[in-house]
Structure formats: C-alpha cells, structure tokens
C-alpha cells in the first residue's frame, strides 16, 4: 500500500514505471526498488522456502534479505538469484521468483512430516543409504533457487583499477562525514567513497519526517561531496550502487558496481557495461559499513509480513510504502519506539511490545502513550498466528532474572497484519574480517564489534557501535582525523566529544533466548535455508560444540544471504544451549564475497577471443587455403592434418606419412621454441644445462640435446645450432618454450651471474619449413643454388647459410622423421612466400604437406620421444633408454647429473619406455591404456599409439615397470570397449625403434 505523497519520499511520483513480476503487470515509480514497488502493489509473496516449501515474503529492505530471491530478465540478459531489495526498478523490468510461491508444492502438502526432516535429514535418509544419486535431481529441483542460465550472457562487463590514499566504505551518515573530513583537511589525497545504494544517506532517510536537522545535514553534505566529485574529480571518486564485496591483503578492495537502466537492459543489444568490478588499492581504509538489524525469535516467525523494524521504517520513509494496516512492533531496544512514532505520525495503528520491563522510563515512551499508542513493556511474542500471512500474535509476560529470560502468565492474542521486530544490531564486520581482523563480543551493545586497533584502517558509525546518527557523524570525524594523521596530512588530532553511552545500540537488552521459545517448532533462525532453533539443538545433541561445526551440520548461513540476519541469533541460541558465554563461542568465519558476484563480472572482458592469446604462424593462411584441420599446441594453432576431399583423419595421415617416407613431404615447424644464446660463455652455458657435450661442437654443426631439472627428470629436448663460438640457436618443444626460457634466465640471473651469456626468445622471428623425404636433396638443389647439398659436403646434423628463392636462409639438415630432411629458416615475414615456393617447386615429386598427427606417427616409427607425452616429469634419461646422451667427463656437474646417482633413480621397477607390438597387427591400442601383469595389476601405461602406414601395422610406446628387461616378453594391455566391455590385448614388448633400425634412410638414396 502506498501512502499519500510526501516530499521526504525518495521516489519520483512523476515518473511511472511498468514492470512484470511472476507474469503479472505492475506499476511503480522511479526510485523504487523491485521490493518496494511490489509492496506498494500488495504483492507480498516472493518465494517458497528451501526445505519445507513455506511461503515467504520480504523480511528486510536491503542486502541482508534472505527470502526475496528473484531472477531478472530472460535469455541472454538473465541473472539468477538476485535480491528484490537490491534491484532498482526500471521501465520494462521483468522478474520471476526463484521458486514460485503460488505454484503447487509437494513439500507444503506433506507439512505434517516436517518435524521428521531435521538437520542432517537428507544425509541420513539418502546419502548414508546410498540412494542419493537416484533422488538428487528431484530434490535439487526443490532447492528454492533460480534455474541456472541456459544461454550465453550477452552483456558486457568491465574491470577498472584505482589507486587511492583513502577508501571510505559505506555512504551513510558516518561514511559521508568521514569522506568530507578527509577531503576538507588534506590537499591532494585521493578519496573514494563506495556505497551499495543508489543514493547516499544510508539509514538517515528514516529520520527525515521527525528530524529536520537530519534532512538539512544530508542535503548539505551530499552537495559538498558532489562538488568535490565535479570540481576535483582527480581527488574524489563516488561509487554508488557499488558493493565492496571483498577486502584482500595490502588493502586491495574489490567493488561490484551495478548499472541498471531501462535502456541498457531492455534493448536487444548491450549498450554499455552492465556491471563493473572496481579493483582499488588503498593506503588507508575507513569502514562505515553500518549494522544489520537482527530479528526477534518466536514461533512461526517466518510468516509473510513479519519484517525488521528498521526495514519497515525504510519502506515507509523512502518509498512511502507500508504492507499492513495494524502493526505490532516488537523488540528489545529503544529503536522500536522510533518506528512506532513514525507509523503513528502516518496514522497507522500500532502496538509496541517490548521485552524489557518499564523500570527505566524513557521520554519517547510516555510521549507515545500520551498520543494514544499502546505500549506493552515486559511482554514478549511467543507465537505468530496465520497460515501464510501473519494474522496476529500471541504474547505473554516476560522478565529477566539472574541473566535468564523467563516467560510466564497467560497468553493474549493481538490481531495484526504486520509485525516489525528488532532484536538488536549486528555490525557489518564482514569486510574487516576478510582481511584477517577478529571480532570481540561487547556486552554493552550485545554485538560482535570489530577489533579495535588495526594498521591502516578505522571503523566508524554503526559498525563501531554508534546508534544515533549524530554520534555516528562525530565518531566518523574523529576517526578520519586518525586516518589523516596516518597519511601525514594533519599532525594535531582534532577530537570532538561524543554523547555518553553512544555505543549501546539504543539500550539494547541481552539476546531474548528463553528455553520456552527455543524448544518450540518453527522458530526460524536462517529463513533461506530453513534452519530452526531445534536444528541447532539437534546438532548440539549430536555432539557438535564449535560454532563452525554447528553451522555446517545445520547449514545455517549457507545461503546466498550468508546468514546476515540469522547467524548471530543462531550463535546466541547455541551459546544458550551450550551454557557458555557468547564471547567464548565466537562467530563463524566471514569470507569473501560479501554479496553475490556475477561470473560475468569476474571474467570481465577476458572471454572469447580475449580469454587466451591465439598464436598463428605466418604461413597460417596457406594452411587454411589447403583445407587443414588445426589443433592447439600451447597457444599455437598448428595444422593437424590436411584432408583431401572425402578423406577422414586416418586416411589423410596414411597418405601424408607414405609421401614423406617414399617421396617428399613438407611441414610448418615454425612453432618450435627458438632461443638465441650469445656471449663468450654460451658454449659453457649449454654444456651446463644439457646432459651431453657441447665444448667441441664446431660452427656449422647442430646437436640434439636433452634437458633435465635438478631432480634428474627430463623437462625438454631439441636441436641447438652452433652459428659461431659465441652464438647458438637453441630450439625447444612448442609447449615448453616459455618455461624453458624462464628456467634458463633463472640459472643465469640467480646462480651463474658470472657467465657472459645473453638470451633472447626468437620463436616469432623465424619461420621454419621442414622438407622431408628421399627426394628432399633434389628439391633443395632447385630451391637454393649457393649451397653445396652433396651428401658428403652437407652432412646430417650440419647447417649452411644460403639463399632460398632469393631469401637469406639458414638451412639445417636435421630430421624428426628419420628421413633425409632439411629445415629452412627464414625471417618470419618470408615464411608464407618460401612455403608456397617449396610447394610449387616440389610438385614434380608430389610434395605433400603434413601436420602434427603425421609428424607424431613418423617420429614414433623411429622411437623419438615427445617430452610431455612419452615423459611426464618423472622420467630420467635412463628411463627412456637414452643413457647414451649423458656425458661422462664434463668438468661441470650439469643440471640434474647429481640426482642420477641417487639409488631410487636406478631402482629396477622404475617405469621405463619401451615399444609395444600388438599380436594382432591391426589393433591400435588406445593411448593411456594400462599394461597389466598376470595378476591383473597395472605395471604401466601406453604413452603413444598409432597405426604405421609404412610398416602396415600398429605400433605403440609404453612406460612399463622394469620394461627394458622385459623386451620380447608378452604383456597384456587392458582396455574398455564401449559394447564388449573389458578386453585384454596381448602385446610383445619391443625396442621403441620400429622402422629403419639401422638409421640408413637419413642420408637419402641419391
């Protein structure tokens, strides 16, 4: 119900907005939240509860809301599980309850059984009985949360980084006051003020109708802040509708800004960022995060229209909305009288029920009584009446005796349609605790206050215990002086005097937790997860003592609201039942994020093409034109195979392999890592990091090297070329290029800084084209006239400088296939040209481009390892049968050498790389299949497996325990087939060299 217009309302009655909620049309006004607009339309039901399917309505007006979860918009704009209290209304908004309160719900139907569904019910009933997998889907459908999005998010999200001297979190009275104090007393310090709401003021709007001074102060202060923001935007940044959701080490604060405008959300194309994550690094932090009201506990306290007292006030003052005509205001502190006064002023009938006795009369009580408001002191609500919406309350007398609450006497019934409760206040200490602060229980304010002293941080206002806004302002000024002092902006601290008892949260009494109420059913603590006082009692009976364990057993505070309204009451209940003081029990741990953060906002722009770099060689377009299929290696897009019309991968690879073995193939090898190594100690450096000898490698020659780490495990391999005595070009594996480069830099910078060696990554600077096959020499002679290609003059593992088709080139005679092969290296930008020239010139030998798949087959036929496929970081050179590459007489103990003599590395049962030949030559074993012994136990696994076209049979490589001693033995490989099930394939262990065992092919036949 909307009240008559009043200038203190923060909605613009001239701007009417249309929106849809649960398929019904409604009207609201600019400045409304979705929650306030629905209350104004008397649409009170929002959701079905998580476990019992109870119908629930709004409890709060802010971020702490446990019930009113909705999904916003549809399709690519869909966002699940937002709180209706946080969504600013815009024209054309559409939202749906997380779980529709008006639909039939089986859980509500089986109501009589609810008492058999306590905490642990699902676990004991389904998981322990091992039937969870069968019922999980159906139970999850009842979860009370929105459905997950099904289509891609079309919105744009941004990240913005800030640096500031001071960040003030919270834009209520205290935050505004603190920000102004800093700005007014410093010259160049940058200040950022963050507030989760769309306008500054926090709870101050609640004072407007009764306190003209509050109105004046806020208007004046906000104007001053805005003029700072406009005139000195370098110094002051104001972030509204922005929630600081995490505070990390070194005062690194993350803020989520929500931008909702009708234009941006209802148009089909995203206009600008929907949400922005601000990442702020601050020198000093001022926390003015305020406090959340906590509810009072009584039976059926979850009925619709039982709300928090300050929230009722906020709906009334800011939006001119009230959801009842006869209100019971109930609580344990003086703030309830302010609510009563405001309602009374607006001609709404109300009755105040205060658990505290009338021993200490205060002015406002007699004022209210005089004006005709009924005030019952020393009474408590024991039960709310009604099935969905509250229809009345049962009250009884109560008193505090020896620190124990007692309820006694007959119950009376009060008819009402709205209950506003206040059980005290919980300071919003979440962010402080994210960053490692502790809380302490303060008896006076009956709350967990933030740790008092901390470096680079001040707390002020309600989060520090201040109740009245006037005190919050002074407190904030005083604390800001400390901040200014820490920054060196002021040397003499100005401190104003605060009123006495400013931090007692309106004379709050101790938690109202009499056993008579705690033992009742349906006294809800956590409304989102349906946790009651009986659940906490059960967890204690089951033996849990730590609040962290009680939380996990009952799931209290596990919801999207993170128990902002219920947790502290739950802790008080547990303390009462355990009969220990609250200070001893403590709180659960506060962890980021304070409120939900969209995945889209976390990802920002780093999605799609911006998720990871994509690297292409300069020859890429030619591969695309040839119809190549690509695979991603590292970040490189490498041709995988080149299918001709109608060919599948197997057929293409078969053709490509035979071409390279019998005539001529070509491959783009540009992605191999290339590191330029220069300096007078380059040779010494290579011999320290590779296992073999490098001192005598003459210019004009190349050498294969194997690189280990200090643990003695293979990390990389590749060919290095000696350009001259002070200059080598090292090649690495495609995937290992970056990590090898980093490792080499580390050795040079941290251990061998005395070596004269300089490194440079030149992977992108050269294109490498491999020409492979028995006709390679003939082709090279046509391509390059200034190099002598005769067999005895340009030998295997040598390189020559020459001119290929007019382009300067380094030609290496190296081979990863066992065939006669040359690698032509040219400046990268000539890559495409040379590739095309090679292809045209090679046509007479039917030159065939091949991709990574054929490369793998060709190298496996020769038993060449691929580091990372046939090795896994736990393989030594001995394990892959490459002891020949370990130099015996190098003076410097090269990297990894010492580890080879550790006994574990020569154990007989180490996994060793061997070949496997299936008895049935047509069977190709799947890679990863396990090799088993005669007892069925795994003794290793297959690392590489292919069908070899030249051998016309399958070949495989495997790591097998003690494999090198098992050559010619028969082992079994166990595989799972889709239809036939498990199958054991007999294989012969062999050498891993399958083809051209003598190595005769490498010289070609001409």
């Amino acid at each position, binding site marked *: 119900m909307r009240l008559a217009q009043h200038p203190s309302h923060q909605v613009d009655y001239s701007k009417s907005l249309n929106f849809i909620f649960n398929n019904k049309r409604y009207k609201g006004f600019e400045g409304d939240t979705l929650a306030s607009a629905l209350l104004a339309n008397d649409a009170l039901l929002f959701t079905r509860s998580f476990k019992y399917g109870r119908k629930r309505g709004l409890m709060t007006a802010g971020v702490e809301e446990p019930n009113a979860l909705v999904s916003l918009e549809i399709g690519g704009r869909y966002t699940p599980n937002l709180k209706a209290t946080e969504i600013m209304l815009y024209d054309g908004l559409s939202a749906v309850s997380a779980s529709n309160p008006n639909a039939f719900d089986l859980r509500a139907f089986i109501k009589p059984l609810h008492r058999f569904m306590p905490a642990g019910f699902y676990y004991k009933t389904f998981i322990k009985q091992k039937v969870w997998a069968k019922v999980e889907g159906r139970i999850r459908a009842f979860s009370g949360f929105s459905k997950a999005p099904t289509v891609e998010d079309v919105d744009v999200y941004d990240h913005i*980084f800030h640096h500031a001297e001071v960040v003030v979190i919270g834009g209520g009275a205290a935050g505004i006051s603190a920000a102004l104090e800093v700005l007014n007393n410093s010259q160049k310090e940058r200040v950022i003020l963050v507030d989760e709401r769309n306008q500054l003021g926090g709870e101050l709007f609640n004072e407007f109708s009764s306190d003209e001074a509050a109105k004046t102060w806020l208007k004046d202060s906000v104007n001053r802040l805005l003029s700072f923001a406009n005139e000195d935007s370098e110094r002051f940044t104001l972030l509204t509708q922005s929630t600081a959701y995490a505070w*990390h*080490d*070194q005062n*690194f604060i993350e803020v989520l800004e929500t931008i909702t405008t009708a234009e941006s959300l209802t148009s089909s194309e995203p206009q600008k960022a929907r949400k922005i994550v601000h*990442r702020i*690094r601050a020198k000093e932090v001022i926390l003015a995060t305020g406090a959340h009201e906590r509810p009072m506990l009584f039976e059926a306290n979850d009925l619709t229209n039982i709300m928090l007292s300050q929230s009722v006030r906020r709906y009334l003052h800011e939006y001119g909305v009230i959801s009842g005509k006869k209100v019971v205001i109930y609580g344990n502190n003086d703030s309830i009288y302010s609510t009563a006064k405001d309602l009374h002023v607006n001609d709404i009938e109300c009755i105040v029920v205060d658990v505290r006795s009338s021993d200490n009369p205060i002015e406002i009580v007699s004022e209210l009584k005089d004006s005709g408001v009924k005030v019952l002191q020393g009474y408590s609500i024991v039960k709310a009446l009604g099935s969905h919406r509250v229809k009345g309350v049962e009250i009884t007398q109560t008193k505090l005796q020896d620190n124990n609450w007692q309820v006694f006497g007959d119950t009376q019934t009060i008819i009402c349609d709205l209950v506003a409760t206040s059980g005290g206040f919980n300071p919003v200490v979440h962010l402080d605790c994210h960053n*490692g602060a502790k809380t302490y229980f303060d008896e006076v304010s009956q709350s967990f206050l933030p740790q008092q002293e901390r470096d680079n941080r001040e707390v002020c206002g309600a989060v520090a215990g201040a109740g009245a806004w006037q005190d919050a302002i002074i407190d904030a000024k005083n604390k800001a002086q400390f901040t200014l002092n820490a920054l060196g902006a002021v040397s003499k601290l100005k401190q104003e005097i605060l009123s006495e008892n400013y931090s007692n949260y309106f004379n709050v009494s101790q938690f109202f937790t009499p056993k008579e109420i705690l033992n009742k059913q349906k006294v809800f603590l956590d409304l989102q997860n349906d946790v009651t006082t009986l659940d906490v009692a059960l967890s204690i009976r089951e033996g849990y003592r730590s609040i962290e364990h009680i939380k996990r057993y009952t799931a209290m505070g596990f919801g999207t609201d993170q128990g902002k309204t219920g947790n502290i009451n739950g802790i008080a209940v547990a303390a009462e039942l355990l009969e220990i003081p609250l200070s001893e029990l403590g709180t659960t741990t506060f962890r980021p994020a304070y409120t939900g953060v969209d995945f889209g906002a976390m990802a920002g722009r780093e999605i799609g093409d911006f998720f990871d770099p994509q690297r292409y060689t300069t020859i890429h377009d030619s591969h695309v034109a040839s119809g190549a299929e690509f695979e991603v290696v590292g970040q490189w897009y490498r041709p995988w195979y080149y299918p001709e019309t109608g060919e599948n991968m197997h057929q293409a690879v078969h053709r490509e392999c035979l071409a390279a073995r019998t005539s001529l193939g070509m491959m783009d090898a540009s992605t191999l890592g290339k590191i330029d190594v220069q300096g007078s100690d380059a040779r010494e450096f290579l011999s320290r990091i590779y296992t073999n000898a490098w001192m005598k490698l003459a210019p004009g020659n190349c050498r294969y090297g194997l690189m280990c780490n*200090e*643990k003695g495990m293979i990390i990389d391999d590749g060919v290095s070329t000696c350009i001259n005595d002070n200059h080598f070009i090292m090649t690495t594996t495609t995937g290992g290029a970056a990590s090898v480069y*980093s490792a080499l*830099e*580390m050795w040079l*910078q*941290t*251990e061998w*800084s005395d070596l004269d060696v300089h490194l440079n990554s030149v992977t992108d600077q050269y294109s490498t084209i491999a020409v492979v096959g028995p006709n390679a020499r003939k082709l090279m002679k046509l391509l390059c006239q200034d190099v002598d290609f005769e067999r005895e003059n340009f030998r295997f593992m040598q390189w020559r400088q020459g001119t290929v088709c007019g382009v300067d080139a380094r030609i290496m005679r190296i081979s990863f296939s066992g065939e006669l092969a040359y690698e032509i290296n040219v400046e990268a930008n000539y890559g495409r040209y040379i590739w095309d020239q090679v292809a045209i010139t090679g046509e007479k030998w039917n030159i065939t481009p091949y991709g990574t798949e054929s490369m793998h087959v060709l190298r496996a036929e020769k038993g060449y390892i691929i580091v990372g496929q046939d090795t896994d970081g736990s393989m030594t050179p001995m394990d892959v049968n490459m002891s020949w590459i370990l130099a015996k007489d190098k003076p410097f*103990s090269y990297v990894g*050498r*010492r*580890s080879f*003599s*550790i*006994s574990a590395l020569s154990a007989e049962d180490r996994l060793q790389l061997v070949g496997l030949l299936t008895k049935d030559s047509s069977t190709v074993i799947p890679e990863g299949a396990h090799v088993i012994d005669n007892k069925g136990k795994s003794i290793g696994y297959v690392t590489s497996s292919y069908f070899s076209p030249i051998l016309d049979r399958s070949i495989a490589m495997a790591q097998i325990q003690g494999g090198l001693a098992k050559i010619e033995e028969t082992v079994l490989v166990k595989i799972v087939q889709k239809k036939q099930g498990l199958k054991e394939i007999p294989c012969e262990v062999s050498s891993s060299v399958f083809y051209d065992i003598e190595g005769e092919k490498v010289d070609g036949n001409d």
Partner: protein
Amino acid sequence: MLLIHCPYCKESRDQSEFSPAGEAFIARPKSPEGISDEEWADYVFYRTNHKGNHWEQWVHTNGCRKYFLVERSTISHQILQVAPFGARNSETEL
C-alpha cells in the same frame, strides 16, 4: 593480489605481472658430486616453509624479466622489502 615493487623497474606493479620463484638463498652446491645424498636432497627438495617473515625469489615475468628478492610475511602477505640479486653482501643483512 599483491602490489609488488620491482627493484629494477622501480615501480609498484600488480602481482599478475610477476611469478613467484621459490625460497631465496638456496645456493647450488659448489661440488654436487662431493656431497652426500642427504645434502643433495636438502638442496633439491627441502624448503623451510617458514611462518613469518620469509625471503623468496620473484621474477617480473611480464615486465623486465628480472629475478629479485622479496621479504614477505607469510602470515599477513605484507611485503617488508625487495632487493636486487647481489645485494646480499651489501649493508643489509639479507
């Protein structure tokens, strides 16, 4: 996410530009063949995993690519000081 001061670039930059590179002052034994398996294992595998102020190596991977020394509290992640390599024998007792 830490803010790290690179002693070479002389700027405080976001942690995403840097990579950690293990505990500092783990010197490679001068004569690996001359020491016992235990001493070698101590160098290769064992680290102090210290709780408190701790010297470690970082590298400015997406910057100058220099390795340098960082003293960091492993409790609060506060960075107490940074130093280039070779500063070990200077006035500070690194």
